[in-house]
């Protein structure tokens, strides 16, 4: 990703992942490999979206990826999806959600814009499992929302300079370690 703005905007945080089982390395060559998840130390992550997505694809072993973008359609979310779009496969899923209490608006552009005021769609949202989730980190509600994603996402990304970035990151990282 060569966009200098995004390089400072995006700070990936590992929320949780498939923990490598002890002895897994000794598995025979014929054994299926892990399909999703990887273990990375915080700070060792590449701050480059294309590298992040490539790593996720490697972990997913060909399974399409699921992305959930919160805070649609705020400028950070729009910036993020513009950077993400060239990296998407046609089979990938992009789910867009507005901030709580905000009606859905804006062009979903191939993604599915969920209306969380509708109970049926709120139920869909609550049952999604994602490879990558994005938070704008602009509102306090993002922290609570992030907490609800524990165990359901591989990776979270928040803009580095957003006011709630640190809290979201700490929360998810703490919870991940507990897993």
């Amino acid at each position, binding site marked *: 990703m060569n966009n200098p703005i995004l390089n400072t905007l995006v700070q990936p945080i590992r929320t*949780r992942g498939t923990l490598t089982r002890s002895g*897994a390395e000794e598995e025979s060559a014929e054994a299926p490999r892990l399909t999703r998840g990887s273990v990375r130390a915080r700070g060792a992550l590449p701050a480059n979206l294309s590298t992040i997505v490539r790593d996720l694809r490697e972990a997913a072993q060909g399974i399409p990826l699921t992305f959930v973008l919160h805070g649609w359609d705020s400028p950070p979310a729009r910036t993020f999806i513009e950077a993400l779009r060239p990296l998407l496969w046609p089979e990938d899923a992009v789910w867009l959600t507005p901030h709580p209490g905000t009606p859905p608006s804006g062009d979903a552009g191939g993604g599915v814009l969920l209306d969380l005021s509708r109970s*049926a769609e709120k139920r869909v949202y609550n049952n999604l499992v994602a490879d990558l989730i994005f938070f704008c980190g602009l509102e306090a509600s993002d922290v609570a929302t992030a907490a609800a994603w524990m165990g359901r996402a591989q990776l979270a990304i928040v803009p580095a300079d957003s006011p709630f970035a640190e809290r979201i990151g700490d929360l998810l990282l703490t919870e991940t370690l507990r897993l």
Partner: protein
Amino acid sequence: MEIISGVQVNRLPGHARRLIGYEPDDFVRIDRSTGGNAGYRINERKFAELRDFWSGDWQDFRLPDLGRVAYSGAGHAAHPKQANITVLADWSTERRGVPVTIAASSMGHDHLFVSGAPPSQEVYEFHSQGALLTGRNAALDLWIAKPGDKVVAPADSHMTLYNLGGADQPLVTLDFADWTRNLSSKDRIRATGPAMLLYYDGDTACFTINRKFNQDLPMDPARRTICVRLTGRSGREELLYDRLTGDFELAGQFLALGVRLRKASPEVRLVPAESGPPVSVSLPLRRLARPGTALYDYYFPDLAAPIAGLAAGDGRMASPNADSMVAKEAVAAQRRASVAGYGPLTRRLTVLVEGPGDWARKAYRPAFERLASRGLSVFYANDSTWSKRPSWAEESELRPWETYLDKADPRNLAIYQKLIPDIVFIVTPDCTHSAVASSWVTRRGPLCCVEKPFDSELGHVDNLIAVLGRHPFTAILGLDHYQLRARHIHDRMPEIAAHLGGALSSVEFYMTESKPLDLARVKSLQFGLTLDMLPHLFALIPYFGDLSSVDEIRVLEAGRYEPFLADDGRGNRVPVPPVFRGETFSKVEFTFEDYSGSGVRVPCTATVGKGLVDRKYFEVRGVNGNSIRLDFGSCPERGNPSYGWNGLMFFSSPGRGASGAAEVADPFDPSRTLSIERFVPMETTPAVYARLLEDLLCAWEGREAMGRTLLLPEAREVVLSLDRIWKAIQDVPGGPARVGHVSGRELDSSAVPAAGIG
């Protein structure tokens, strides 16, 4: 290529010394030291012998040198009988001084009537492209065959073989018959000439029908000749096959001359001499033309079939092998468990159920409940244009981890189309299974489990396989809850194999219910209950043998119960709507090869249907007289609790009960006393589905349930067998609706009609 044990076809016919011989440079080489090959006698037919038949339309063509070999045959007239071999290579000659090629033919003969002889006098199997002309005079059938196809030459009929492979590919066929009752005459051919002439004029194949066979045909040969232009980018023989089997206009031209074009297949039906059902065979003759098969028995009924442990009569020793049974079953299970290249999940598992019908409620939902605490998201995808939203899936009834989507709703459809579940269960109507699976293949869904029956149409499965070829990512497994519940067979296979003596002698299956048709399911069951109930048996076969070996199918009985009423779900009996066109019960017989490796075919009898007594079991008898029975029923009111309901039982052979074995009267056959050595209870259906889901949380080596599924090729074999059985049921005289009404009589000694249907 080996077409029979010790009989090789050379790949370079142009360099062959003889069409059939015993040397390596012969086109078809017979190794006389192998098996019963010493019984072959080669008979080369020279053009001098064909001179008498070279008349009529053929006289325009120069008869090749009389000393040249026209075609060759290798007859086998010894016991145990093996298939005969025929090789025909095209003939280069001239027509009015212009070089032409005549498609080699056997020139034809008429079968002679032999009292008591099998009506299906000979079975031909093609090992290259060819045709067989059968029938009489003005009603001839021209069977077009590709390698692997078979055609029956009926008794009291004319028959002529033709090569359709062109000058570079001689025709190679095998044929099987009882040579003592396979009498034929060339007298008519001597008088009339062959029924049909096929020659190649440049890029045109010309078929001339002999007017002496059909006096209604015009005198002018040009008006009795059909010309097929063979220009295109594929080979000439491919073009000819495609035109003859797929061109309706061409078929019409042939029909106008009294010849019906027929497309051959690997399957043929042998019609019994006496009354009775035909037997359908499709495996290669190299596997069936030997003692102990239904094919052999059809032509040589007086020769006893071998059983495992005894010499088969053809030099093979059908020895039982318990180790082989255990090893082959284990390999098959391992292959299934690892087919989904899916590692253990440590995050929340996402499941999508296509078709939230009654089965999803009864079998899947309780399994989900068991696993919900581990982290689970379940999506139910329905199509309300097919069936309405079930009450249990109303918003207020769903658990927090459940989501219902209606694909008929555009908003829901958009959501459905973006879901990426870890596993998809396909529980939609049978005929849609493969299509739904195909959609997940194109979406790169990692794992699809398709409920039984895998599909109702073989073509649908083949389409799925083609889609999978273009998108080779998704793992597809066939599911059957009986197979899942029977996992004790796998767990105890060493014990079972030893108990059965290392090989099987027979299998018996009952899936009969006393209750009548459910009115709500009449539409989905309209093609008969056999398609719904028999798949359970085919899902159990892989514990003991290879599904691809299933053959020699015979429908012994098929019909409907009477009075023909259905249950409307409110306790009322109502007439079954006319949309139901199938049978309510059937009794089917087939054979397969077990994992012992003996090659001896194991007979299997299956009775399925409704309106009979409740009886659900799968019994496997071993060569030593012991057996195991897997009973899928629960103890009825006033039933004997000592019998092993809903579990796996080990029976000792009659009169050899092991010490401590419980002697129990068979609840389904009062004349039989069961000596039960051991009993292992079975798990419930929701429990085994939960295990299947748990497998996704395990390393593949630790998977228990996923190995008890069907791989896609196995599922295809099931659909193919069901297809064949369904067609055989339709051929029962009068059709399935009009024969074998079960009311007022017994289907057999123990499966009696249940009282109270009306």
